[in-house]
Each structure stands twice: as C-alpha cells, then as structure tokens.
C-alpha cells in the first residue's frame, strides 16, 4: 500500500513535470514568436498516410483531414486551448436547450475560385454534410444527422440550424468546412476559403498548396508554398530527417528526438488518443469484474510508457484524455499493485490464466504495448499470447464483430466533444466494442448529452470516468504524447487538440 | 613448303604417344604411326581403344584434364606436341583438316553452316568476302552437296546426317590441307551415304594428293579405302601392314577374331563370335599383352611381358609372342 502511494506521488509529480515542461516550451515558443516572422518561403511536411478523397465531407482518413484542413474554414475555428472562435461566422448564438443555432455569416470572403461566399453556400454545405440534399443517401458527417433543418436568411446574413434533439457539443461540429455551392470537383481539386490553395496532388507522392493571397483574415499565411510528402512510415524516412530534408514531421516518438535534435526542434503535443487495453466484457474470463480489476492492478503503466513511448505519454486511469481539459477527471488514483492482483486472481480461482491480445499489426505502438503487457502479465502468472492482425481485419473482426479476447487500441476523437470518447462505453452504441454494460453509466451518458450547463456536464463526465475505473471496464493505459519535429529555422507551429497540420501559423524566423 | 616436305619423308610421324587423364588413366598407351604424303592410312580398333583421343592429340584439342604424357608428334618434320597456341592456329584448319566422329556435335548449332565453313577461310586467308563465298560454294559442290546457296543458309539441325558429315568434310578440305584426318566419318550414316563418302575421300586423295588418316572400327570400309592399316587395341597398335595383307593374312589374334566377327554371306545364321567378351576396362599402364585375357591361344608369356612388334614381311608387323618363334 505504502509503495503504491509513493509510486502514485511520483506519477503525479512526473505528469506535473511534463505539464510544466510543456508550459516552458510554449513560453519559449512565444518568446520566439517575438522574433520577426518572415513572409514567404516553402516547407515540406512529411505525412505517413495515403490520402483518400480530397472532398472534405468524403475524406475519411484522419491523415487526409489534417492536410485538407488548410484549404477550408469552418463557421467556427478550434483554438489550441480547446475553445472555439468565430471564423466564417462573425458570431453565433444558440438556444438554451441547445436545439437551435444561429450563425451570422461574414461578408467579403472569397473562395479560391474567386466567387464570393454567400449564405446559400453555407446552407448548401450544411445540408450536404447532413445528407439533406435531394440526391443524398445518408449524412456524410454522422454527427450532423441530428440536424432537422437549415435555413438561410440572406437579408440578415444569418443561417439557422435546428436540431432534432439537443446536443451541447453541436458547436464543435461547426468547424465543418464550408464549400462553394454546386462545385463538383471537390474530390480532385478542393476549393474552400482557407489560407492555402490546392495546386497539385500525386498519389503516393505529394500534395502541394500555395498561399491564398486573398485570404479574408487580417493577414495571409506566411508561407508561399507547402508540400506534403507522403512517406510510408517514420522509420523509413529517418534518413531524410537526419539530412534535414523535411521541414516538419509530425508523430515521431521520443527516441527519434535524440537522433534529430541537432536539426529539429521537437514540439510535444497531447494526442487525441486514449490507448486502452480493451477487454471483451462478455467473454470469459473478462466477464468477471475481479479478473478485470486484477488485470488493471497488474499493469505498470509508467514502465509501459517508458518502453513504448519513451516516457512521452500520460498514464490514464479512465477513458478520458487530458486534452479534453475540464472534462478530464485528474483525481483518479493509480491502482498498480501486482501482488494484490496475483492474490485476487488466486482467490477467485483463476490459475494459469491464458489470454489472447489481438492487436492491429500496422500500428507498432499497439504491438509493442501488447508485448510489454504480455511481459508484465507473466509476473502475475498470466500467459498472454499476442496475435497481430491487419487493420482491416481488426476493424471487422474485433471492432465490429467483437470476436476477440482482448485488444490494444487507441480511441481517437475527431471533435473535441467528450461524448465522442465515452460513447465507446455506452451500452447501446455501435462502438461499444468491449461490450461494457453499466446502466448507471448509460443514464449519466444520456443526461450529459442534453445538458448545456458546462459545470454540470463536467461533473457528469467526471462521474462517468469514475464508474469506468471502478467497474474496470478495461485497462486504460495512456494518452501517448506525440512529437513533431520542426526544423530549427521555422517558427509558429501550433498544435491543437484535434489532428490538423495548420500551416497558417508557420513562418520562417 | 617444298622445303618442309623434303626435310621429312613422312607428313605425320607419331612416336610413342602416351595420353593420360588427370586421374592417371592411360587412354592412349604407346602409339606410333607414320603417314607418307599422298597415302591413305587406316586406324582400326574397337570402341574406346583410343582412336579419337589420338586424333585430338594430333590436332591439339584434347579435352580438359587430358594431356600428352609422352612421345612426339611430327607434322612435316615439326614437333607439334608442345607448340604455342598461335602456331597451332596456323596449322589447324590450314595444313591439317579434321573430320570429326560425331558430325552433329561438331557443328555449332547456332551458326549457319555457310558461315561455319567460311570461318576457316576467314581465319587463314585474306580473301575478300566474295571470293570466300565462291570458294565455299565450290567446296560444298565438290562434296556433292546440291543447292548450295540455300543450304549455306541453313542451320546444322536442318540438315540430314549425311549432309552434316559432308559439311564437315567441306570444312576440312576447303583450305587444301596436306593431311586429312577422318575420324569414323561414316558410322551413324546409312549404307548409301556411307558409300558416297568413301568415294569422296578417295577422290580428294586422288585429286589433291592429300594424305588421309582414316579411322574406323569397321573393316568393310577400310578395305575399300586404305593403303595401310594400323590395328589399335587398348591404346597400343597390335598390327600394322598393307590392307590386303592384314585382311588376307592377319597375324595378331585380335585382328583375326575381329575379322571373323563381321557377318558375311557365308556365315549366315551361324555363330560369329569366338572371341570372349571384354569385361573390364583396364586403364593402368601396360605390363603384359593386353589381349591376353581374351586370347584363345594365350600362354604364360603373354601374361608376363609386353610383346614388341614383330615384322613378318615388308611393313607387316604384329605384336604377338606367337610370332616370336
């Protein structure tokens, strides 16, 4: 018990340290920002995923979204601190029950094809995304399926959205890209109002964009040209990084930082990931809460973070990630206690427990995590067999088919909406792949959805997290930090609680 | 040229030739033979007696790992056993023409035969292409090939066995060599072609005064062609003499038996064989008469000593102790 407490304090200390380090870095950043930003220049950004459709509503891959982000603006813009600022909407307001939202649309904004942004464009965009156009089959953005109607008022310059039911998170979805009406080539040559204009895309090679000289904000982007180079993975690109051929390279692990620190600054960002060891709650032996608890106690998360993310991660005790700001319940204590775990298992009659951990082999971090877990479990006498499957198979067999023992995966969220994370534990959800059933949790979840009062919502979410820990829904591992390498001559690289590569703020020092 | 000829009486003189393989086996033990200008000499012996190996030794084309261990070969008075590759190139194909035993293996399968015949001229003469072509066609006609323009453009596999053999002959004689070695040119051909080729060699010998070393294991053709015959047994000549002498009065037991095993009309339906079959191939050096194990008249001495050549009458010699009376 004592040991635990010690460890605990250590952990919190460490997290604190990290936070303070982060702060320091941000301070550094702001110091550097005082160094005069230069106008002009071009940069090369390395990305590790093939792009799919460039249409902002059809693009499914996260890797695509973070790139095409630069072509578009939403009605609101997510800020680095997780708040929202008006963008194409000069202002907005919503009804108390969060069912009706009204946006005042900015005037004088031009699309890349020189046509002016109109109310119709906004209405069209929302309707298309919500699947309300006559020829659409379903909502292209599922979160927008709750829209009941969209109406524009050209006189007033406003657009009003009515929802079928209340959704307090709705505003977060309004970062949705606004596109020109009736432009059909969005998938090949995307057009938006954003700070960069699409110029060229070659599959398997690169996507190029140039500065939008007509940008509506008070300044245009600093950079003249940005090239996103597609590489298969960071390991394969290491040589180029050493030579300084990339200007920006996101999603590196800390061990790479050691190698590259001469040429690059490393900017740490919280990822929007919750890495969990998902236990199939309906499968023996995980249907027994004792086993789940014991496994929770058996995992040394800090060691795991050291081994896999080279210390750049935050141990989690529940299903919410720190980047969710207030919603994150930081008060939950670590449960690490392998001796106790062993005892619990023995008492419950589980001897020589053999389990299987199915992981998507494409994700090295999960595979390594599983390996470390297996090594840790060995100490409490549990034999874990790591089985890797490819991503497509994982999705259909594990995630959709729910046909597995346990798995290591990271839950991500496209919007900074706490519900999108905890949805995975809501028993009626499609995404509850761990088959977690807890009526209390379900009730809390449902009420949080319609709650508009911030403080109350925070409270509800904190309670939900507590339930997840108490009931040991799964083993919550870490919020892996990612490192972005930015070449020393560049400044202004900003991270957001959402996956985007915002080139608007980047400049040559 | 004239000088060379006057220098030696023989165009080819082989003295105590011994050819061994890398493993030390003696393929040719002790061969001596002489050929006068204009003479046709036969070399007869059973399969494996070292006929072809002797030929290769003369031409300097012994296969890898096989070498001359002893003896000399004088070609027009010059010892050609140890000459440089360049000197060899001057003799081969120019003064010495060879018809190889297996025609299908002696022609490069990927080169048109016209070109292959032409190659000899290309190497040894400096005629222009047109002259060369005429000569190639001329020679091809001389060896009784018809439709030569078309034939010259064919590949070896497109010819019949007889035609191939003739191409080889054409190749061997195109440069008017002074010595022609014909290594079993007629085995594997049918009777009518065989007869034609024998006639052809006769003709060449007659018209160009070319000396011929004719190699065969078959007495019937030797009888028609040769002036003198050497009978070879296991790498050693056992009998030499004029063809008629040898056929009419063979002295060595081997020759006698060999002649008896040829089917003739008189022996129809009867047993041919009196000679015991050979069971072992002995490749060590000879210390006794090698025919002893098969000889019906073998006696003690045969098993102990190696017989010398005993001369009967002018030029007829045989290596048999029975003659040492």
């Amino acid at each position: 018990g004592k040991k635990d407490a010690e460890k605990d304090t250590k952990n919190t200390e460490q997290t604190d340290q990290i936070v303070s380090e982060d702060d320091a870095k941000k301070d550094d950043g702001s110091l550097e920002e005082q160094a005069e930003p230069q106008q002009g220049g071009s940069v090369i950004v390395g990305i590790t995923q093939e792009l799919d459709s460039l249409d902002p509503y059809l693009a499914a891959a996260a890797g695509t979204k973070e790139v095409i982000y630069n072509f578009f603006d939403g009605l609101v813009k997510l800020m680095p601190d997780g708040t929202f600022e008006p963008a194409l909407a000069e202002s907005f307001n919503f009804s108390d029950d969060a069912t009706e939202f009204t946006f005042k649309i900015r005037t004088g904004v031009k699309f890349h094809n020189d046509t002016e942004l109109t109310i119709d464009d906004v209405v069209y965009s929302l309707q298309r995304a919500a699947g309300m156009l006559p020829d659409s089959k379903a909502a292209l953005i599922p979160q927008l399926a709750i829209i009941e109607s969209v109406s524009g008022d050209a006189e007033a310059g406003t657009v009003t959205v009515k929802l079928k039911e209340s959704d307090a998170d709705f505003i977060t979805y309004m970062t949705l890209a606004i596109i020109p009406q009736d432009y059909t080539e969005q998938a090949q040559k995307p057009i938006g109002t954003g700070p960069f204009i699409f110029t060229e895309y070659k599959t398997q090679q690169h996507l190029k964009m140039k500065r939008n000289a007509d940008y509506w904000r008070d300044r245009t982007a600093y950079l003249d040209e940005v090239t996103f180079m597609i590489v298969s993975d960071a390991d394969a690109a290491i040589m180029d990084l050493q030579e300084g051929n990339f200007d920006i390279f996101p999603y590196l692990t800390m061990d790479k930082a050691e190698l590259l620190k001469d040429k690059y600054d490393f900017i740490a960002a919280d990822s929007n990931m919750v890495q969990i060891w998902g236990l199939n709650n309906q499968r023996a032996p995980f249907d027994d809460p004792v086993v789940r608890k014991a496994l929770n106690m058996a995992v040394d998360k800090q060691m795991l973070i050291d081994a896999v993310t080279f210390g750049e991660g935050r141990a989690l005790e529940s299903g919410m990630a720190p980047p969710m700001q207030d919603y994150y319940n930081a008060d939950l204590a670590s449960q690490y206690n392998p001796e106790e775990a062993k005892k619990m298992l023995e008492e419950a009659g589980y001897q020589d427990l053999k389990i299987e951990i199915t992981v998507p082999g494409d994700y090295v971090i999960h595979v390594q995590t599983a390996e470390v877990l297996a090594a840790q479990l060995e100490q409490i006498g549990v034999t874990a067999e790591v089985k890797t499957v490819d991503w497509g198979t994982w999705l259909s067999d594990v995630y959709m088919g729910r046909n597995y023992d346990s798995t290591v995966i990271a839950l991500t969220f496209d919007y900074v909406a706490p519900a999108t994370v905890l949805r995975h534990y809501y028993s009626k959800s499609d995404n509850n792949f761990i088959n977690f059933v807890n009526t209390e949790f379900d009730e809390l979840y449902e009420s949080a959805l319609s709650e508009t009062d911030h403080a109350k919502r925070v409270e509800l979410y904190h309670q939900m997290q507590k339930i997840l820990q108490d009931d040991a829904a799964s083993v919550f591992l870490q919020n892996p930090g990612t490192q972005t390498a930015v070449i020393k001559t560049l400044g202004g690289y900003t991270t957001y609680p959402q996956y985007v590569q915002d080139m608007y703020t980047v400049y040559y020092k | 040229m004239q000088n060379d000829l006057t220098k030696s009486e023989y165009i080819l003189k082989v003295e105590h030739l011994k050819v061994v393989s890398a493993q030390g086996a003696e393929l040719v033990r002790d061969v001596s033979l002489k050929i006068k200008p204009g003479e046709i000499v036969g070399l007869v012996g059973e399969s494996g007696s070292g006929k072809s190996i002797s030929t290769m030794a003369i031409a300097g084309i012994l296969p890898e790992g096989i070498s001359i261990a002893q003896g000399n070969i004088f070609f027009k008075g010059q010892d050609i056993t140890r000459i440089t590759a360049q000197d060899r190139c001057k003799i081969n194909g120019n003064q010495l023409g060879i018809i190889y035993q297996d025609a299908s293996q002696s022609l490069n399968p990927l080169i048109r035969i016209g070109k292959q015949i032409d190659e000899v001229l290309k190497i040894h003469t400096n005629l222009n292409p047109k002259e060369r072509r005429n000569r190639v066609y001329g020679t091809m006609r001389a060896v009784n090939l018809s439709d030569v323009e078309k034939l010259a453009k064919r590949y070896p596999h497109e010819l019949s066995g007889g035609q191939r053999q003739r191409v080889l002959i054409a190749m061997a004689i195109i440069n008017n060599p002074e010595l022609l070695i014909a290594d079993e040119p007629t085995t594997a051909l049918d009777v009518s072609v065989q007869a034609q080729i024998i006639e052809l060699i006769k003709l060449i010998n007659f018209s160009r005064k070319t000396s011929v070393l004719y190699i065969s294991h078959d007495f019937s053709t030797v009888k028609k062609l040769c002036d003198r015959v050497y009978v070879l047994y296991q790498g050693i000549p056992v009998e030499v003499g004029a063809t008629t002498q040898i056929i009419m009065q063979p002295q060595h037991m081997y020759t006698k038996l060999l002649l008896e095993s040829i089917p003739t009309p008189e022996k129809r339906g009867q047993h041919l064989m009196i000679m015991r079959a050979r069971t072992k191939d002995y490749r060590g050096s000879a210390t006794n008469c090698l025919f002893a194990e098969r000889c019906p008249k073998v006696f003690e001495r045969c098993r102990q000593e190696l017989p010398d050549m005993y001369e009967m009458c002018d030029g007829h010699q045989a290596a048999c102790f029975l003659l040492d009376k």
Partner: protein
Amino acid sequence: MARYILQKAGQMLITLLLIVFIVFIMFELIPGNPARIMLGMNASQEQITALELELGINEPLPLKIKNYFAGLIQGDLGRSIRFDKPVGELIGAAAPTTFSLAIYAFILIIVLSVPLALLAARKQGSFFDNSIRFVTETTLAIPPFFMAIILMLIFRTTQLGLSSGQGNLASPGFLRQFLMPALAIALSRVAMAMEFLRDAIIEQKRMFYTRAAVGKGATKSRILFFHIFRNSLVPFVTVLGLILAEVFGGSIIIEQVFLLPGLGRLLVTAVEARDFPLTQGIIILIAIVVIVVNFLVDLINQFIDPRIRLSDVKSEKSNLWTQLSYKLKFRKDIKR
C-alpha cells in the same frame, strides 16, 4: 508466328481469367470491410451502410464478377475505393516509376553480371571464380529489405531526393537518383544471372564444337565471342526474363524502403484498404507483364537458337480434338 501469337494470347486469357477468379475468391475470404476501413473507428453504422451503397460493395459475388467483366471488356478497370479515382489512372501514374526502375535495374544486372560471368568462367574452380561466386551469393543471402537499408546507410541516400523526382527514365538525373533502389533490386539478382551465364559458358566450353573450332585454327577470343558467348545466351536470357517479369511486377519492399510511388506500394495500400478494383487491376497488369515478358523471352531465344521452335506442336498431339480432325481430314485426302 501468327499461330503462336494466337496460342499465347489464348493462354494469357485463360491465365488472366484464373487470376481474376482467384483474386475474387481471396477478397471474399479476407475479412475486412472497405467502407469501415476508410471511415475508421469513429464512423457510425449508418455512415458505413451509406458508403457501402455508394461503392456497391455489398452486391452478391456473381453479380460483382459479372459487373467486373462487363467493365473489363470495355477496358474499364473500375474505380478505386481507397483513392476515389479510376483504377486506370492510378496504375498509369504508378507504373512509370516501377517500369523505369525495373529497366534501370535490369540494365545494371546485365552490366554487372556479364563481365563477372565471363571472368568467373575463364577458369572454373579458380580462386577468382570462387570468390566472385561467394560475394554474389552473399548478396543473395541478405534479406532484400535489409540489403536496401544497408545500401542506404552506406551511401547515405535519402529518399526525398528520390520521390521528389518525377521518377521515370525520361526525367533528368534519373540515373543518379535511382541508383540506390536500382542497385538494391539488382544486387541480389546479379548473383542469379551471373550463375546461369557462368554455368552456360562452362557447359559450352565443354561442347565438342567448341573444340572443333580450335581444330579450325580459331583464336581464343574468337572462340569466346563467336562460339561460346552466343551459345550461352539462351539460359541467360531466360533467367533475365524471369527477373524482368519479377521486378516489373513492382518490388514492394524496395518501393517501401525508398519511398517510391510505384506499383508495389500501391498494391500494399490497395490490399490493406481491401480496395478490390485496384488490387485486381494491378494484378492483372502484373500478370500481363509476366506473360508478355515470357513471350519476348521465347521470341529472343528463338532468334538466338534456331532449334527452339516457337509453337511446341508436339505437346498438343494427344489432344482429342486433333485426333478427331485427323480422321476428318484424312477422308478428304483419300477421296482426292
């Protein structure tokens, strides 16, 4: 000749059909839903159903096959699921890189293996022969991706320099840029090509007609180039054809390591995304390349060695159809 081409075309068609079916069946067996893969974990069931409808991937197999062939006949390879682009266009963009690289590597293989083979064959079993073979076999023994990485490390090649180039033979600086990947492909195969040529030369040296050429009075160099070399080409060309077909199909690993936008990498992406039309398209292309290269090898070999007959008529002998037609034909002959 025309007959031969027709026969080959028939074979090609059958092989292609077989391949298309195999791939269809494979995709039926492999779990994974392209719509789900594209949309990721956060998508809802409705969204996936909508996309499936859009892509038409939930049709029953016979209908799918039927539609595919209907398209194929019109030369339409379909639309890639993953890239949302016509398959033809994607392959068209990736093939030049792979093909140029293949040709480059191919030339390297020839340039390296021919002199080595000639040197090694000069004296079989000599120290030189043995050491050349030891070195080349070692290159063959190193796993291809490891070899590529080692090459990169040794020569400190960066990939960006490569992939930023246009990546085909026509572009300037191609030879320098693509040297490393081409070398990585070539090195392991040089051993194979060399070994075949060396063995063939040694075999030819033993042939009697080579010695017969000495008997004609030909010089050493003449024999080597006029008689031996040409005759050893048949096995060499055959193995080169095999190699060419193999590298034309896209070296997945080399493209992965050197980040080249070629067919191999495209194939990996396609399979991972369960992008059926794209996979099918690439494999059809690879199959065509394999078959066409085989055809070329036959043609060249026949040119080198006239003994090789293009159409192997004998093997058809036992065909029942020919047997029957003999009889028919024979009746006619008799009547005449």
